[in-house]
Structure formats: structure tokens, C-alpha cells
């Protein structure tokens, strides 16, 4: 996509303070439109905060979801309808909150993982919820009437801590990334029979250390992963894994590796609707990447557009593009703050 021709910069719109410990994760509400955007943040202070843009244009904390999780809340995710928020915690549970009027109420608590739950993700239709934990498993839950959730599968295969799970933007295909350096792709064989159809490990040009996060592009034919090995990897995910011939060869493949840009662990990565990849790392910086103009069809190349050093005073744990306004970005840090950024051209 042809973007801005001029030099770009990330400008801070506002710094959101309130959490009393490091902020681990962020999630923009997909349903909130217009001037009233809504952002959820989760923290080591055991709470989840909801931030909304008020009539004055500034972001304020409109709700604090507390007294539910007994330990760090590591990750949060909105359902596609924007009415439910799932929160994953080190206390081993995943809470589901319903948003009615300005209030949030915990309507379900999903138990089962043996230890810290690290990630949570809703599928495109909102009918399935996936969670992952340090117990090396990924659980799939089915949403039922009356805010009931039933576990339909426990996926085993990773040999270590699973750091994050993410559904494909429109297929019921689940991807998980782990401390075991691999990326696993899971699909259903009909009738709740979920299994791993592909493992993208070191042998498939995969990462050589813990993989922390993944993100699909808006059409779902590309995926980016980030790792402790200081690289970002782009993968071709255009083939539907459920339709593979089943000869053992997975259909997704490595396209390109972005190395030399980061010198500390990359914790978060997110692909915007306009094709911009944002990364948040342990060197307190935020970087933006895009496919370069001289990129070839079978050998794409990416370049760094912007490097925002000292974006925060400490590690950046999460970066998320706003789903409606593609130039708006939120970042969360160990310094306990969240920053809202706007990508704009440098005025000449």
C-alpha cells in the first residue's frame, strides 16, 4: 500500500498513568467507533483498566477491574462484538467480563490451567476462546449461551511455556508461540478434534530463542513473529492449513527475517490495517517496518520506517494499532505507563 511519501514520526498524544506496577498488555475494543475509542490495559498490579476518550478529547480511565485476579494480569482480549473482555492471569484463571452501560461485571472464570496463563485470544466469530500457559498447553473453550464456556480441547505439543496464542483473522486456525523457540499451527479436523498441523521451528528457518508474539496482517496471508533472538520473521500464511494434503508438509513458509534492527528482546509486534508492522522491545524503543518498494513477489523485503528511542523509560511490553484509526498506536511499558501515539509526516 502506498503510504505517506514524506518522513514519518511518532508523536505522543497522551501518557496514561494509573497502574501501580508494570503494564503487560493492551487491547483496543473493536466495536468502539468514532471519537469514543476504548482501550483495555492489564498489569502486574492485578487490575485491568479501561481507558476512553472523553468529549474533551483526552483519554481518561473510565473503569478499574479489580478484586478478581489474585496475581498479575498478563493479557487481555476483546471479543469481536466488543461486549466481552477476557483477561488472563498468573493466578491460573481467565476471567470474562461483560460490558454493560459503563460497567463491567465478571461473568465467567475459566479454570483448568496448572499455572500462569499467559495469553488469550478470541476467534473471528467470537464462538471460540483460546488460552495458553506455562503448563505448555493451549486450551480451546467454546462460548455457550448465558456466558458459559466449555473446554473443548487441550492442545499438547509445545515442550515449554506457551507465550501467546492468536487466531487467524477469519479462519478457525490457531497459532501459538513458545519458550521452546517454535511456532505451532493448530486446526480442527471436524468434531472438536484439534491437532497441530505444522511446527515452524529452527529447521523451517524459525527462531533460535523464545518467540514472544505474533500478528497477522489484515487479510491473513502474512504473519509476523518476534523473538528473544532479536529478529522479526515474516511468514507466508496464504494457504489454508485445513486444506493441506496431509503428507506431513505444512503449507506455511518462511518469507523473510528482519535482523540487525533490535539489540534486546522484542516482546510485542502488531500489523496494522495499512500494512505497517510495529515492534516493542526491551531497549525501550518502538520501531515501525513496512514492505519496501523494491520488494519481489517471492522474495519480499522489509525496511524500518521509524525508530522511536526512549519511547518509554523502561521495556516496552505491548504495542497495538487502533483498529479504526490506523495511524493511532498504543504502547505499554514496565514503567507503569501507557502512551497513545500518532503516526504523522514530519512537517517540512
Amino acid at each position: 500500500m502506498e503510504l505517506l511519501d514524506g518522513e514519518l514520526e511518532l508523536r505522543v498524544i497522551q501518557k496514561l498513568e494509573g497502574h501501580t506496577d508494570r503494564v503487560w498488555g493492551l487491547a483496543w475494543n473493536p466495536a468502539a467507533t468514532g471519537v469514543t475509542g476504548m482501550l483495555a490495559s492489564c498489569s502486574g498490579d492485578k487490575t485491568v483498566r479501561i481507558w476512553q476518550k472523553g468529549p474533551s478529547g483526552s483519554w481518561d480511565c473510565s473503569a478499574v477491574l479489580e478484586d478478581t485476579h489474585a496475581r498479575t494480569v498478563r493479557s487481555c482480549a476483546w471479543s469481536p462484538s466488543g461486549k466481552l473482555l477476557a483477561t488472563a492471569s498468573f493466578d491460573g484463571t481467565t476471567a470474562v467480563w461483560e460490558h454493560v452501560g459503563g460497567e463491567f461485571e465478571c461473568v465467567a472464570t475459566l479454570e483448568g490451567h496448572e499455572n500462569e496463563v499467559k495469553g488469550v485470544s478470541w476467534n473471528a466469530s467470537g464462538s471460540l476462546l483460546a488460552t495458553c500457559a506455562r503448563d505448555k498447553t493451549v486450551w480451546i473453550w467454546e462460548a455457550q449461551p448465558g456466558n458459559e464456556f466449555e473446554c473443548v480441547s487441550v492442545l499438547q505439543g509445545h515442550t515449554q511455556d506457551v507465550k501467546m496464542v492468536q487466531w487467524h483473522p477469519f479462519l478457525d486456525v490457531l497459532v501459538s508461540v513458545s519458550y521452546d523457540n517454535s511456532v505451532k499451527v493448530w486446526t480442527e479436523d471436524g468434531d472438536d478434534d484439534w491437532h497441530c498441523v505444522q511446527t515452524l521451528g529452527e529447521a523451517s528457518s524459525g527462531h533460535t530463542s523464545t518467540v514472544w508474539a505474533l500478528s497477522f496482517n489484515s487479510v491473513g496471508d502474512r504473519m509476523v513473529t518476534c523473538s528473544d533472538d532479536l529478529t522479526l520473521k515474516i511468514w507466508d500464511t496464504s494457504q489454508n492449513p485445513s486444506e493441506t494434503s496431509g503428507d506431513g508438509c505444512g503449507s506455511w513458509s518462511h518469507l523473510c527475517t528482519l535482523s540487525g534492527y533490535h539489540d534486546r528482546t522484542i516482546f510485542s509486534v502488531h500489523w496494522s490495517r495499512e500494512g505497517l508492522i510495529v515492534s516493542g522491545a526491551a531497549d525501550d524503543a518502538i520501531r515501525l517496518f513496512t514492505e519496501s518498494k523494491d520488494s519481489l513477489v517471492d522474495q519480499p523485503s522489509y525496511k524500518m520506517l521509524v525508530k522511536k528511542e526512549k519511547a518509554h523509560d523502561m521495556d516496552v511490553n505491548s504495542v497495538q494499532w487502533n483498529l479504526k484509526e490506523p495511524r493511532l498506536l498504543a504502547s505499554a511499558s514496565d514503567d507503569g505507563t501507557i502512551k497513545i501515539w500518532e503516526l504523522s509526516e514530519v512537517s517540512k
Partner: protein
Amino acid sequence: MHCLLVLIDLLAVLLPQNLNKLNNFSYSAWKRRQPTSLPPSPNKRSALKSRCLLTTVQKAYKRSWKFHQDPEHPYTLEELKVVTEDSIEVNDKISNVRVTFTPTVEHCSLATTIGLCLRVKLMRSLPSHYKVDIRVAPGTHATEAAVNKQLNDKERIAAALENPNLMYMINRCLEPTYYY
């Protein structure tokens, strides 16, 4: 490990902002040493500061050793090479600290716990924006890579430190009376 803790206490006190107060720096001693393996500081003054810091800290640990001895090991820590010259590398320009420690036995199962104690000590001693890397000295532990990976996984460390039993043990190890 005890002396590494003393070292860290002194490190906190001797941070760059306090270095101007040091006036017993030995230039000839500095010249004799090899450069650190961290990225070179952008200017000679910063390199000087890091070296100065390390030298002073090492002198202090040698002094403190006279007052404390690990009952399990009658040898000095220097003879055992538990604490070597490269134990603490500081690059204050990029606010980086790397601690290298040597477990006394190759299969020491306490390696992860020792590393965890060091991490907590450093967290409490250094300003929050400092980046800390902890590792076992290369070639000194059977599962070196696995130990290093755990010790440098921020999320795993955070989860471990929420364990009250573990924190109790770490706090006991770090009580000043325990190692002074």
C-alpha cells in the same frame, strides 16, 4: 555468591553520579587491564568510569572477604574463581550491567536460585531503568544455556517472584547480616 552481593551493594553506591568522589583511582592498574566485552563506551571518560568502578568494587570485596568465609569452602573465593575479574561489567552510558557468576560445582542445582537472588539484589540496588543480564560463567555449568535462558526471561522471573515461599527464601539470603 556472598561476595557478589557485597559487590552489588557497592555497585549501587558507586554509580556514575557518585564516581567524581573517588580519588584513589590507579591509572597504571587500569592500563594493565583488558577491555570489557560489552560494546565500547563512546568516549574514554565513560570507559574510565566503568573500569574505575570495577577496580574499586573489587578492592572492597577483597577487604570484606577477610570478615566472612563460606564455611563449606575453606578456600578463598578468588582461589575457587567464583568471583573473577569479569564478574560485573558496567556500561553506564547505556545503563547496562552484566553479572557473570560461577557456581562452585558444575551440576550445581542452586544455579538458578543463586541467579534469582542476584537479580532481586540488583533490582533493589540499581535505578529501575538499568538493563541487567545475568549469566553463569561460560563453561562452568552442565546446563548453562537452560539456566541463562530462565534467568533472563523477564516474564518467568516476574512469575517466580510472586511465589511467597520463594521470596521468603530469597529475602533471607539477601539479609545484610547473612553476608556481611
